[in-house]
Structure formats: structure tokens, C-alpha cells
């Protein structure tokens, strides 16, 4: 009982760093998913509709990113960019790495969704005289979006999990803040558990949101 009181007392003492860390985790994830989605849409479109050359380069990009561990992407982005004279803070380098990682996933998801649409629909759109742009915006994209949305939401949870890797390059997100607190009070069991609990709550909520979106977007058959 005394231990528990001690633990709550320590949490109260550390409340500001913990909240800052949580805020940082959320900002990293949000930025990575927004930037990654924008980049990912270009990746997906290039993979599906690009000419041979563009497809080759974008395919090489996605394969390279997907074949490399995220931690290596984070470390490489942090160390390489500063060496070649691009001055980025650890935060910026980390968010860049996560966005690149996210873009390859979103790109593949979008490609899958677009290719799952029966080609007859494109032909029908052509037959009634729609331009490619019109076909895309009013026939293909809405259907692809419906199929992507649940996975998209779950990618947000992936980003929250991947944001912990930025602690390695010194970004003061939730995990690094917890480690700092532990190095002060040595309560590793309690504070790793507490950090885990916070991550669980965030990710579980996102997962439930994903399931909700999935229920809402499936067409009843």
C-alpha cells in the first residue's frame, strides 16, 4: 500500500515532464501521419498510374524503405542529414524518417485499394466521356478511400508505436521522459509500466476508432 502511495507521489512530482512527453508523442505521430499520408498518396498514385520509369523509381523507394528497419531510418536520417549539411533538429529528422516510413505503407495501401476496383468501372467512366481526372475524383478515389480508411486509422496507431524510436536520437517524447524519470528515482518497473499503460490507452482507442470506421464504411451486402 505504501509502495503504491510512493508511486503516485512520484507520478505527481513528474507530472509536467510526463505530460510534455505525451504531448510530444502525439505531435510526432500526428505530423508523421499527415506528412506520410500526403507523400503516400503520391507514392500510391505513381505506383498505380505512373509510367514505367516513374514506377521503377517509386517501387525502388518503397522497397528500400520497407526493407529497412524504422530504427535504421531514424538513425540514418538523423546522422546523415546533419553530416551533409542539412541542419535538422532530432525532432525534425525523426519526424522525417517516420513520414517516409508511413508514406511507403500508405502508398502500398492505396495501390492495393485502387487495383482492387474492377477495371470495368474505369471503362464505363470512359464510355460516358469522363476525363481521367474526373474518373479518378468521382469514381475511383471515393471507393479507394472507403476501403483504405480503417487501415489508415490503424496506421496512426503504428505511428504512435514507432514514435518511441525517436527516444534513441534524444527526442523527449514519452518514453525518453520516462527513462529520465527512472534514472532519477530508479522505479523502472513502475514507470515503464505506466508508460506502457499510456501507450496502450492511446493505441487501444485508435484501434477501436479503426473498428468503428470499418463498421461505418462497409457496404452491407
Amino acid at each position, binding site marked *: 500500500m505504501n509502495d503504491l502511495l510512493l508511486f503516485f507521489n512520484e507520478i505527481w512530482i513528474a507530472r509536467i515532464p510526463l505530460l510534455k512527453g505525451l504531448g510530444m508523442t502525439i505531435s510526432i505521430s500526428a505530423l508523421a501521419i499527415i506528412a506520410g499520408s500526403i507523400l503516400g498518396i503520391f507514392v500510391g498514385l505513381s505506383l498505380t498510374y505512373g509510367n514505367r520509369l516513374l514506377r521503377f523509381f517509386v517501387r525502388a523507394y518503397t522497397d528500400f524503405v520497407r526493407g529497412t*528497419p524504422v530504427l535504421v531510418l531514424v538513425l540514418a536520417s538523423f546522422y546523415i542529414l546533419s*553530416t551533409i*549539411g542539412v541542419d535538422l533538429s532530432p525532432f525534425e529528422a525523426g519526424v522525417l524518417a517516420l513520414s517516409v516510413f508511413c508514406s511507403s505503407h500508405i502508398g502500398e495501401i492505396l495501390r492495393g485499394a485502387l487495383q482492387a476496383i474492377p477495371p470495368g468501372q474505369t471503362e464505363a467512366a470512359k464510355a460516358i466521356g469522363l476525363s481521367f481526372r474526373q474518373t479518378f475524383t468521382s469514381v475511383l478515389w471515393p471507393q479507394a478511400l472507403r476501403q483504405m480508411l480503417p487501415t489508415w486509422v490503424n496506421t496512426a496507431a503504428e505511428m504512435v*508505436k514507432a514514435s518511441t524510436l525517436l527516444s534513441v536520437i534524444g527526442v523527449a517524447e514519452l*518514453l525518453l521522459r520516462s527513462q529520465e524519470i527512472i534514472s532519477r528515482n530508479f522505479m523502472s*518497473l513502475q514507470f515503464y509500466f505506466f508508460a506502457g499503460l499510456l501507450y*496502450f490507452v492511446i*493505441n487501444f482507442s485508435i*484501434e477501436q476508432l479503426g473498428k468503428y470506421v470499418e463498421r461505418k464504411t462497409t457496404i452491407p451486402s
Partner: protein
Amino acid sequence: MGYTLNFAVVWRNFDQLLAGLLLSLELAFVAILIGAAIGLITAFGLTSRHVWLQRVSMLYVTIIRNLPILVLILFAYFALPQLGIRLGKIESFVATLAIYSGAYLAEVFRAGLLSIPQGLKEAGLAIGLKPMQIRTSIIIPLMLRNVLPSLSSTLISLFKDTSLAAAIAVPELTFEARKINVESFRVVETWLVASALYVFTCTILAAIMRQIERRLTIGR
């Protein structure tokens, strides 16, 4: 700018990188073997008729899938000793990775189990097999063949996850690359070679697994 590439240091330490790569592969293989066993048991739990078995399995899967793996790794290595569970770096990392992959494989195996036609089990009963025999000689082999593609992508992502062992100083590929980076400052070269090794190995692994899948597919 003004950075000239010079791979000399990286080549000089290439055997270190290869040793790291080998350790990464070993970690991934051991973890997926144990993880598959955990996943299989959990999948039977998930599809079981006993409600409490279902709940316990679901709880494990939900908790693990919603936690960042880095937190699990640090927890296992730094926090468990407080409870008297003291493991070496490699043991604690492999155990964490196995428990982590077990939760993902449980979902894969569950889908596989549900895809086995009920009639096969009935046929097994009809020729007098016991439920355990039906599992080991009919259901599991068929299910494993069906889930092989998911199994190979899990293996590849586990191989990439071994990079996180660097956080607790296990000398795998990322750790070795970091060491070379810190010692030599050949930053661009080190990380290019390290990522190339990862990408190359992932491609080879994927090709091998595809070959195995092809071997095991029944002609249709």
C-alpha cells in the same frame, strides 16, 4: 555539402557488420520459432469453446498488439529484474520478441484455423482419430500451409525488429553500424551499407519463403 564518400572504414569493419547481421538473423529465427509455438497455443485459445480461455488469449493479444515493442524490450530488460527475473541481454530480447510475435501470429493462425473446412475434422473423427491427433496430423499441417505467406512477412518484420536490440546493447547489425558510425564518423557510408544489408537480406528471405510456398502448394 562538401562530403566525399569514402567506404574504406566501412569495408575494414565489414566482418563486424556481417557478424551483426548473422546475430540479427539468429535472433529473428529463434524468436519466430518460439513465437509460433506461443501463437499456435493462443490461436487454439482464441477459437476455443471455453469462454475464459478465449478471454485470456484475447487479453494477451490485445495488450501486446497495442504496446510499442521498444517499451516491451526495455521493460523486460530493465524492469523485470526488480521482480527478481534477471535475464541476459540476448535471452531477454529473444523472449520479448517471441512474446511480441506470438500475439501477431495468434491472429494469423486463428484466421488459418477458421479457414479449415469443418468436414475434415469430421472425417478425422469418422476414421477414429482422437481430437489431439486430428489437430496434430490434419488441422495444423493444413493451416500452416495456408498461412505461409503471413508467416513469411512476420519473419521479415521480426528480422527488421531485431534492430531494436541495439537499445539494450545487443551487438546485432544496427548496434555494430552505430559503433562504426561513432568511431569513424563515416556517417553516410555506414548507414547506407547497413540499410543495404537489411534490404538485401529481406529480399533474400522473401525469395526463400516464396520458394518454400511454391514447393508446398498442392497443384490446383
